[in-house]
């Protein structure tokens, strides 16, 4: 039973991380209908930035709390800056191009960013500083639930709550929903669509960066290639929940996290990644609109 709970908890924290990344995919898709292939790289850059800042601060002798706060902020700021810039360079000029053009551009961006980090930093795995300590009060159940699982879960819950508030009740959130529904109409009622698209990229990137920080400190190492797999898995989660749907992305992420956790725990860990890819292929084949998504009808 302990083993089951252990797997359940690690599945939840896994799902929480996927959710942070999947939201970026789903929000961008909802608003401009693009699979932002470079989103996994944003997550990787977020993790790298927090790694660099945290290491510098720890060498300079800052206290742990300051390191956590500052590296988290730095990761979010820089990842957002990258997200914003990428949209301006690689996607904005292609807004009226055939559908595959921005996708190819996104793939190019993803390859570019991977190799940029590889060249600017290193191809080796880097040890990530432990930002989440083992809490004392967790001692009695530490063999079942790790402290970082709890932190990941709580952070994600808070972030989700804030995001839901922003999208539901703020001006910018309403403008986002309007733009997602009908871009031309949104423009006609005076919404600055370019700004809304930029805002979507910035929010999505910041979420991915927080995910990057959490998972890197959980696993304890990073390299330039971590974005590819995490990106594909989060994308799988977004599609599973119904791409374009925000609650769908969260639901899909938890389902994917839990199934992966149980599959590796009870079956075999060799095919952990094959599992996610197969799931992706199967959903797209049998229910491309996902669990909570709307089926698209083509206009003729």
């Amino acid at each position, binding site marked *: 039973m302990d083993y089951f709970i252990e797997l359940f908890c690690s599945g939840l924290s896994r799902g929480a991380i996927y959710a942070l990344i999947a939201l970026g995919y789903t929000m961008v898709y909802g608003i401009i209908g*693009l*699979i932002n292939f470079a989103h996994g790289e944003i997550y990787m*850059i977020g993790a*790298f*930035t927090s*790694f*660099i*800042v945290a*290491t*510098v601060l720890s*060498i300079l002798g800052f206290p742990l709390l300051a390191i956590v706060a500052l590296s988290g902020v*730095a990761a979010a700021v*820089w990842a957002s*800056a*990258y997200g914003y*810039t990428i949209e301006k*360079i*690689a996607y904005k*000029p*292609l807004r009226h*191009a055939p*559908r*595959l*053009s*921005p*996708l*190819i*551009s996104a*793939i*190019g*961006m993803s*390859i*570019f*960013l*991977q*190799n*940029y*980090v590889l*060249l*600017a*930093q290193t191809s080796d795995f*880097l*040890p990530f*500083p432990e930002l989440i300590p083992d809490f004392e009060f967790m001692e009695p159940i530490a063999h079942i639930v790790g402290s970082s699982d709890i932190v990941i879960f709580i952070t994600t819950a808070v972030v989700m709550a804030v995001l839901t508030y922003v999208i539901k009740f703020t001006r910018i959130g309403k403008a986002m929903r309007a733009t997602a529904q009908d871009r031309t109409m949104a423009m006609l009622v005076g919404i600055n669509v370019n700004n809304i698209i930029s805002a979507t990229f910035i929010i999505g990137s910041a979420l991915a960066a927080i995910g990057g920080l959490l998972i890197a400190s959980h696993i304890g190492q990073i390299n330039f290639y971590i974005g*590819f797999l995490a990106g*594909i898995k989060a*994308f799988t989660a977004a599609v599973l929940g119904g791409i374009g749907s925000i609650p769908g992305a969260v639901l899909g992420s938890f389902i994917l996290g839990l199934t992966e956790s149980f599959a590796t725990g009870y079956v075999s860990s*060799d*095919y952990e*990644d*094959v599992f996610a*890819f*197969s799931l*992706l*292929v199967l959903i*797209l*084949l049998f229910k*491309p609109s996902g669990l909570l998504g709307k089926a698209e009808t*083509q206009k*003729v």
Partner: protein
Amino acid sequence: MFSLKTLRTGVLISLWFVFLTFPLMVIKVDPLERIIQWRWKNALLVGIGTFLIYLVVQYLNYRKEHQPPAKVEDTKDQVSFIHKFIADPIQRKLLFGGLLVIAAIFPFVVSTYQTNIMITALMYVVLGLGLNIVVGMAGLLDLGFVAFYAVGAYSYALLNHHFGLGFWEVLPIGGGLAAIAGILLGFPVLRLRGDYLAIVTLGFGEIIRLVLENWSEFSKGPSGISNISRPGFLGMELSLEGSILYMYYIMIAFMIFTIFVVNRLQDSRLGRAWIALREDEIACQAMGIDKQKTKLAAFSLGAFWAGLMGVIFAAKTTFINPASFTFLESAIILSIVVLGGMGSIVGVIIGALVLILLPEYLRALSEYRMLAFGAILVAMMIFRPQGMIATVRRTYRFQKK
């Protein structure tokens, strides 16, 4: 040409990029030794580089805006020089003959090492032409092309290892198995919309690679299969140099064969259907074209070519492992097609030669190879989606009635 305002924007953009790249480009930390390295020179380089790129882009935009817009009658003048040159039958024969002679004597003029590089380049030409059928003509973005390449390579490696089958026997088998894999995958996935198709084929490519890595009883896992036989010549075992020479001529013959086939497909009933499908699926179906069948033909034909090249790859390197079949390999082949010009045969050939040979000869560049491939995909989509050499449709002549 550059107003003060443009220059000021340029400086601001450069500063933004200096900020953007600051943590990754300037700071480098060694967490074990606890050393921080500040590389301020990089910040300067990023700033200047961004500014220069910005000026070039502004200049190109300026030229584009100040050129008179092309009229219908002018479109013939826009046809690339190469296409104009080979439109004349005598010039065409001379050019092809000349190229053939150069190709034939090439390995005797250069070293074995360079012949070897040329073989690789030719392989990418053929792979590019194969993917061009799928992406360029039929408009199906296949990101798992490398999976079919792997099917071909492993077919030869395993059949050679277990049953001692030779290169020429496995060549059609490898191509055939890859084509069957293409049909099996294509049957369910070709219903999907373009961008989903891209992701599913990517997923499929990764599944194949991960299975090859983990199913050790079948594929020997990450350590791969070594001592694969090189192709024998009339039953003789060739020396290393002899077999490289032989391989080279096989590739030349193969490339000519591929160009011949793709060229004929391009202007056939099927080729037209592919291009129409790429342009507008609904109109295509309304014209009586069976979408599924037409897409499947393109997909499996592309897979067939990848399979053939896989067999050749295994025979050339005599060693394969799953690391040769990553997504990046698919991305390289895609870059070739995109750079050269989607649907354009001449473009893809030139694209492959440029992208594969340039980094080989400019060693300093080879480190930046993948970086450049990524940048090429983005830049081509934005500035020249038709590629270096745009495709030209066949013109027909009729007697006026």
